């Protein structure tokens, strides 16, 4: 990938000529791509090892204490009259039978065992708290250091300020953007390179609220850190509240990833994957109707394309990482 130099150019930005042919745009720089995939690995392993840790006590509480009977979430196992294990999930006062998945699921020998989340959702697959903690804390460092690099890099390269911080025009277009998303309508021209308002809000929420929040709530569970973080712990209600919030944010990350993958799927899975693997993203011909939003600036240099037979890639201002 030798196009980085092209991305670094600071040629005066001029609106590009209306293009009709499809073209490849260098969209995601190498550091962003590497950090993205490190994050995929770290988040996946933290979720799976986190569920292993959760299974050691599959109950959640609010406050500082874990008094029996005050759980707001409980993945429990009971024996029915016939002696079979029944798995239940209780949220507040609502309890449902979740045998086979939550509360009770098949152990390694195929017989039902009491465990919060099933073995196919935990690392390691067997109940093994000590090892789950090793995975979790190792990848916690990967996640935190990678996240700090990402924020630092994106800030230095103005990726955060330009591509994610919503503009006034973005806010005005929020209704339109919601409707477009509901109709699975995705722009194909230069507009596809720009993060829309919902993307901007989603990314900012995930990075700053979820990312920082889940790390702080993880630290708030550490008794050593609580010697200095006690005001934060008490502000969220107590250590068990921090554990609950940590769990909720973990699933909020899952919800984000589900939506993210869905959007990748409906907006062109091959093109999006190529964008995040090679950096090159193809945009289609401009629609006949003039676009209201300003077209993406294009620098005149042409770099050799890495993909023979593809439309000639055009070096792009690094606004769209």
């Amino acid at each position: 990938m030798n196009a980085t130099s092209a991305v670094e150019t600071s040629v005066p930005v001029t609106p590009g000529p209306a293009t009709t042919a499809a073209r490849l745009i260098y969209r995601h720089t190498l550091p962003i791509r590497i950090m993205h995939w490190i994050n995929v690995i770290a988040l996946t392993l933290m979720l799976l090892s986190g569920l292993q840790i959760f299974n050691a006590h599959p109950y959640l509480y609010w406050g500082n204490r874990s008094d029996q009977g005050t759980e707001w979430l409980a993945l429990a196992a009971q024996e029915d009259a016939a002696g079979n294990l029944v798995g239940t999930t209780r949220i507040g006062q609502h309890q449902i039978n979740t045998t086979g998945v939550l509360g009770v699921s098949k152990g390694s020998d195929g017989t039902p065992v009491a465990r919060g989340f099933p073995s196919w959702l935990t690392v390691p697959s067997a109940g093994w708290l000590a090892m789950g903690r090793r995975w979790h804390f190792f990848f916690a460092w990967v996640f935190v250091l990678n996240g700090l690099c990402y924020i630092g890099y994106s800030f230095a390269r103005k990726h955060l300020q330009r591509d994610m911080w919503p503009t006034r025009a973005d806010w005005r277009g929020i209704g339109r953007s919601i409707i477009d998303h509901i109709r699975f309508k995705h722009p194909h021209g230069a507009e596809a390179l720009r993060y829309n308002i919902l993307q901007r809000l989603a990314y900012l929420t995930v990075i700053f609220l979820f990312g920082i929040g889940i790390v702080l709530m993880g630290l708030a569970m550490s008794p050593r850190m609580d010697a200095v973080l006690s005001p934060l712990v008490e502000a969220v209600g107590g250590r068990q509240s921090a554990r609950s919030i940590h769990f909720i944010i973990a699933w909020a990350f899952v919800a984000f990833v589900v939506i993210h993958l869905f959007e990748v799927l409906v907006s062109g899975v091959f093109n999006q994957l190529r964008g995040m693997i090679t950096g090159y993203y193809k945009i289609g011909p401009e629609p006949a109707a003039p676009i209201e939003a300003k077209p993406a600036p294009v620098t005149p240099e042409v770099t050799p394309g890495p993909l023979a037979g593809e439309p000639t890639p055009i070096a792009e201002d690094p606004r769209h990482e």
Partner: protein
Amino acid sequence: MSDRRSFLRMAGMGAVGMLLAGCDRISQSGLGTRVLGSAEGLNRRVQALLSPSSAMAKEYSEADISPVFHPNGTTMPDTPAYQALMANQFRDYKLQVDGLVSRPAMLSIADLKALDDRTQITRHDCVEGWSAIGKWRGTVLSAVLDHVGVSPQAAFVVFHCFDEMDVDTPYYESVDIREARHPQTLLAFELNDQPLPVPNGAPLRLRLGRQLGYKQAKYISRIELVSSFKEIGDGKGGYWEDQGYEWYAGI
């Protein structure tokens, strides 16, 4: 369509299965566990920087005390030595303090009280995830260490316990001198204004303000000052440490 869907489902499950199987293999391998375990040293050093060794755990009020302080692990040591002491309400109990000290001692609960007597309400956090708050009365470990005189070579305080986790595998734990000297590190003999109940570690247990529950040895029979814990148990510094848990349990 349903063919494709089931294919995708199989492929997805195959990918997840391969990921989990790979993780399981790493979990079983020596190198894998060592690499993953390297985070422990980082946690210990970084947490010592962010939360200095003098930092105090929060102390709670009477209203915060758990109605039931859940006992975990051993709740009734069955060794003859312990059973004999229990039969006599621990009146004959004496804590043995030896190792790298200048004045080895045998201390009764009354002796401990004479050395130092304080009460604190702190939170107990189990490695499993639950928490309980209790009011502990005890003797600060630092006072005991001063009483026996710690040799300069001593680096760790080892707690030997009455309860056996397996045949000839007594529970034990260890902390470094700095943690042992922390003002909230107590040898507790009372819980919630009552003599320490047997399930909670009678007659004497360790209380650390800033580490997880498994570090807080119950049923202490002997305290030994050592320069290294390599020769004790499987050499990892504690019963649960020998089972793969971290020696540093600050997180």
